């Protein structure tokens, strides 16, 4: 530690460069991770907020709620653990507002999804053509009482409540009544909903033409969800490996330059382990200070980032990524250790 600290103190510029590089890599990885998490959450926030375990869909719907219709017979009897949901894509239109794509979810007042909705403002839907909408609408300038049209429906809808983090497949959710879902879907007879969600993990619906999936199966089938996730995981993984290589190269060069000095110390009887300790603690000091600064940058970013950018700063996940980077850097820092151990003190005598 003594040697490492003294060297960093003397070689401020050189150490600063390495720290700066680690800051950039760390910051990039933290931000990418937050983006990945944010996007993933915007895909699934609504589903997760229901606390559903099992979801029954039409067996021909390709595990896609939007493509699913269930008849009264297929829905069957529902206990207090189940709720019927009608999903359809809508576009919200109002004068002096941008058009907004959203997901309409029709609920029944007497079922748990409706009853557990956690509003940040206003009240639940009690009448036809009332909506509880995601706060994304607030960001677009809508307020309680604002009215807009959905798709071709001429009757205007009124916002009666706001709900946070109600996102499905990155689109904001608007919760309304089941009858409104039917009229948006132009259904008169036949289907009564898109899906049955259950809080009961053992719920099973064996009706003809219906199939029950776990929540995860439905989430994984959300359009683009897995592609997005694997893209991000791949990107972050590559960045980790690249950072490992970059940090390893820098630490290697740094250590190689010191080998003549280390040879002198070896000739003077300084044990190899002291030199190995100096090398490793130098790597740790540089990487940890880089990561601390990167964390600071990330915190600042989290503060100033606009609310509509899908970023989620999840401390355990970012902590894990940080530890991953540290481990990578340590592996990188270990590469030159072999040269340190095998440094030949004879080389210092002579001339």
């Amino acid at each position, binding site marked *: 530690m*003594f*040697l490492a600290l*003294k*060297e960093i*103190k*003397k*070689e401020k510029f050189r150490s600063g460069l390495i720290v700066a590089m680690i800051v950039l890599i760390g910051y990039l990885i933290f931000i990418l991770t937050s983006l990945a998490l944010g996007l993933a959450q915007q895909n699934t926030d609504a589903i997760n907020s229901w606390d559903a375990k099992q979801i029954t869909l039409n067996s021909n719907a390709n595990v896609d709620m939007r493509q699913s219709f269930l008849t009264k017979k297929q829905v069957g009897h529902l206990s207090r653990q189940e709720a019927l949901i009608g999903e359809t894509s809508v576009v919200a239109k109002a004068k002096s507002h941008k058009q907004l794509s959203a997901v309409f979810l029709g609920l029944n007042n007497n079922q748990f999804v409706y009853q557990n909705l956690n509003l940040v403002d206003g009240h639940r839907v009690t009448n036809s053509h009332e909506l509880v909408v995601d706060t994304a609408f607030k960001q677009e300038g809508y307020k309680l009482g604002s009215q807009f049209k959905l798709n071709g429906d001429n009757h205007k809808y009124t916002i009666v409540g706001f709900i946070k983090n109600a996102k499905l497949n990155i689109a904001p959710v608007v919760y309304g009544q089941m009858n409104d879902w039917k009229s948006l879907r132009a259904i008169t007879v036949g289907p009564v909903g898109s899906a049955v969600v259950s809080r009961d993990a053992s719920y099973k619906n064996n009706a003809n033409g219906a199939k029950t999936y776990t929540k995860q199966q439905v989430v994984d089938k959300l359009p683009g969800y897995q592609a997005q996730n694997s893209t991000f995981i791949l990107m972050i993984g590559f960045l980790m490996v690249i950072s490992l290589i970059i940090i390893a190269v820098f630490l290697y060069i740094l250590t190689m330059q010191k080998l*003549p*000095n280390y040879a*002198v*110390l*070896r*000739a*003077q*009887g*300084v*044990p*190899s382990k*002291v030199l190995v300790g100096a090398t490793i603690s130098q790597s740790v000091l540089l990487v940890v200070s880089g990561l601390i600064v990167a964390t600071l940058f990330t915190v600042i970013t989290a503060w100033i980032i606009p609310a509509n950018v899908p970023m989620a700063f999840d401390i355990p996940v970012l902590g894990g990524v940080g530890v991953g980077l540290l481990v990578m850097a340590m592996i990188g820092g270990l590469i030159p250790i072999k040269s340190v151990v095998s440094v030949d*003190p*004879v080389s*210092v*005598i*002579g*001339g």
Partner: protein
Amino acid sequence: MSSFSVKNVNQIFGTGTAEVHVLHDVNFEAEPSTLSLIMGPSGSGKSTFLSIVGGLLTPTSGTVEVNGLSYNERSKKERDALRLDSIGFVLQAYHLLPYLTVADQFKLVDKIKPQGNLSREALTDVLETLGIKDLLNKYPGELSGGQQQRVAIARALYPDPAIILADEPTAALDSARVAIIVKLLKDLAVKHHKAVVVVTHDGRLVDSADRLYEMKDGYLTKSTPEVSR
């Protein structure tokens, strides 16, 4: 008892046509309270000899015994410990760690070997004798060659080693400084009972030697019988 003894040491570098026989059947004994001077031209094998004596290089044949035990009988760790405790190298190319101030060069020794180093007063004496007392807060890069060499000497003496091996300790110094260094080495032998071995081609050191040797093409010979003090 001798501090160390070198018996029938041969050193051959390379093999086949590239073979260089650098040391030929070298025998040598160093005793406490004695300043031995090995004179020899460039390339005669002086530094190679010191490397072997310091246990940095294992000779092709022959043995070196320090404190009655040969290097072959010591583990790598024990050889390190021996160098740290008992052997002070004053190197020809006086490397100091570039990122440690002069004061920190000594502090580093304290970190690795907390005990048995020179006391603060003794170190101050050495620094004063060498004329480098005011340089404590400087980095090696801020010192002249001669100043660096004197710091390197002080660094070698700091762990209070029983054996001092000096390779051209006066190369970068003017005659006035040479006299100071010679006196210092002589004092180490006489007053502090060290076994001091100096290899050099600097003729200015000859007068101070208790024993004088000559190294020529890898042959070590006693050049003058022991001079009385």
